[in-house]
């Protein structure tokens, strides 16, 4: 039986339309200003391909880092009773609300060659994070990992613990239980969290430019390249923007079951 929906009041309708336009108009503007005839040429310039390649490798590396380190962290947050867990979770979530440029300054203070950790890394291993691709990865992981951690932690919390208890009753040790029961059951959340943090890493600008600088071929990722080209080569900037817009759409489609499926009446 279907219930007749209430007609929205006019004022609500106007405000909602204005909100939608706020989202839609810039996107329409971007697509409309694109120079479609020369789009491929714009993307084939050495600067553009370099930025795309660098963005792809650093964002994938940052995602890998977020998964490898974020999975144990999510598990600790969801399953253990360590003291100060609330404060710990707040710390993990902080990069989501922190202005990225502040994150960049913070990374700089911790890992620059003048800082204790940075100088130790350089003196001992010869590793310099600032102004290097590794620094880009670190900056991207800093802002992107929280997305992975909260997604996986939520999945761990909603998982029926009795599955793991049954597995233990069948003789499985905690590592076996995690690998053969827990991980497969939260796999959709792990994938979603990884996609989400990858998208965030790909778009990272503020922390990257502050911490890793803006060196062509080493730290100039797509967003940095777009910002720089806007003055000198607007059509190239728009072409690269369209690439990122396309990726964002792909991510939305990839996560549609998770985000867009829930609102159906």
């Amino acid at each position: 039986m279907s219930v007749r929906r209430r007609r929205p009041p006019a004022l609500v309708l106007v405000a909602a339309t204005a909100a939608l336009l706020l989202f839609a108009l810039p996107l329409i503007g971007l697509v409309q200003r694109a120079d479609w005839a020369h789009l491929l040429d714009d993307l084939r310039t050495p600067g553009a391909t370099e930025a795309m390649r660098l963005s792809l490798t650093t964002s994938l590396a940052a995602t890998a880092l977020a998964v490898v380190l974020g999975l144990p962290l999510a598990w600790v947050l969801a399953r253990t009773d360590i003291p100060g867990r609330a404060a710990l979770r707040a710390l993990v979530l902080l990069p989501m609300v922190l202005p990225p440029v502040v994150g960049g300054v913070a990374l700089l203070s911790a890992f620059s060659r003048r800082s204790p950790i940075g100088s130790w890394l350089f003196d001992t291993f010869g590793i310099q994070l600032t102004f290097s691709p590794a620094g880009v990865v670190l900056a991207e992981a800093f802002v992107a990992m929280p997305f992975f951690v909260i997604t996986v932690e939520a999945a761990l919390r909603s998982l029926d613990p009795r599955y793991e208890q049954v597995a233990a009753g069948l003789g499985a040790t905690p590592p076996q239980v995690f690998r053969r029961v827990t991980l497969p059951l939260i796999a959709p959340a792990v994938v979603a969290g990884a996609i989400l943090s990858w998208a965030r890493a790909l778009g990272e600008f503020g922390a990257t430019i502050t911490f890793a600088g803006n060196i062509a071929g080493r730290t100039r990722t797509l967003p940095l390249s777009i910002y720089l080209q806007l003055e000198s080569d607007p059509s190239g900037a728009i072409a690269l923007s369209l690439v990122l817009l396309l990726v964002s759409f792909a991510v939305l489609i990839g996560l549609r079951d998770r985000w867009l499926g829930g609102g159906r009446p």
Partner: protein
Amino acid sequence: MTLDAQVQVDLDGFALDVALTAERGRVLAVIGPNGAGKTTTLRCLQGIRPLDGGRIVLDDDVLDHPAAGTFVVPERRRIAMVHQDLLLFPHLTARDNVAFGLRARGRSRRDARQQADDLLARRGLAAQAGARATTLSGGQAQRVALLRALVTEPRLLLLDEPLAALDPSVRGETRRELRRTLDEFTGSAVVVTHDPIDALTLADDVVVIEHGTVAQAGSLGEVTSRPRSRHVADLLGTNLVRGTARGTELRSGPAVLHLAEPLEGEVFATIAPSAITVHVSEPEGSARNRWPMTVTDIEPAGERVRLRLDGDLPLVAEITAPSLAALGLQVGSPAWASVKATEINGYSR
């Protein structure tokens, strides 16, 4: 004695203190209302909830003994659990669910799957071996869950409301199958249930829990024939007749009972004490289930009176105090008992 447990836990609002013993090869039913502490008891046996007091000993191994600082982790206890909602691993096939425990114990994937396939085939589930656990029917899932638990040869098998989630149409068949499975099982089993029929069909011994303590414990026959409290009497106080059925005739020792519905083979039947009519002389009429008896005991039970009747078929009857007075019966008096065929509930064993 295989399982010997004194489970003591401080819960919100009340203290749980329950003694459980289950010998090897026997099935213990833990019965009681919701919130009595049944589930917590199972969690303690599994090792998910550590004891606050008492101890759990299985096959001479102390599994949990807070006073001595002993606690064995769940994966080392060899205690398998089958939940009411079965909890088959949804990401695995029926085969890999059954193979899970074997793999956990270090068997190769090939070996484990081979044995799982053999076991599934023996239960008529060869066609479902490769099916995702989530696609199985209720009865199939139940069999897979039992196999998954039994394949690890647990020392103790725990069953939490094993039949409650099943559709009534398959419950009877599944109950009989479960009974056969438990008969073959060589370890001890503990069945938690709130359904007296489950206890009557599956268990050898029974523990009735009420508000965290044991209201009565003993063999099934003892508890059903001599319930010590009104609560236990309401729950389990019934006449339990074991015998062999052929059609509508049930033979139990020298007595023959006439059933309303035909049954075959080893069966047992329950007759509610209040369904039995007591007469001073042989009743006339169509009731074919009538036996000469001697009154051996008369005990008041509230408004009513419980008569213990001895004869070819020992029975407990419950009648009102005025009718006892009208019948003029005393201990030692001869009497006749009769019951309608429709009041005898038969179950295949």
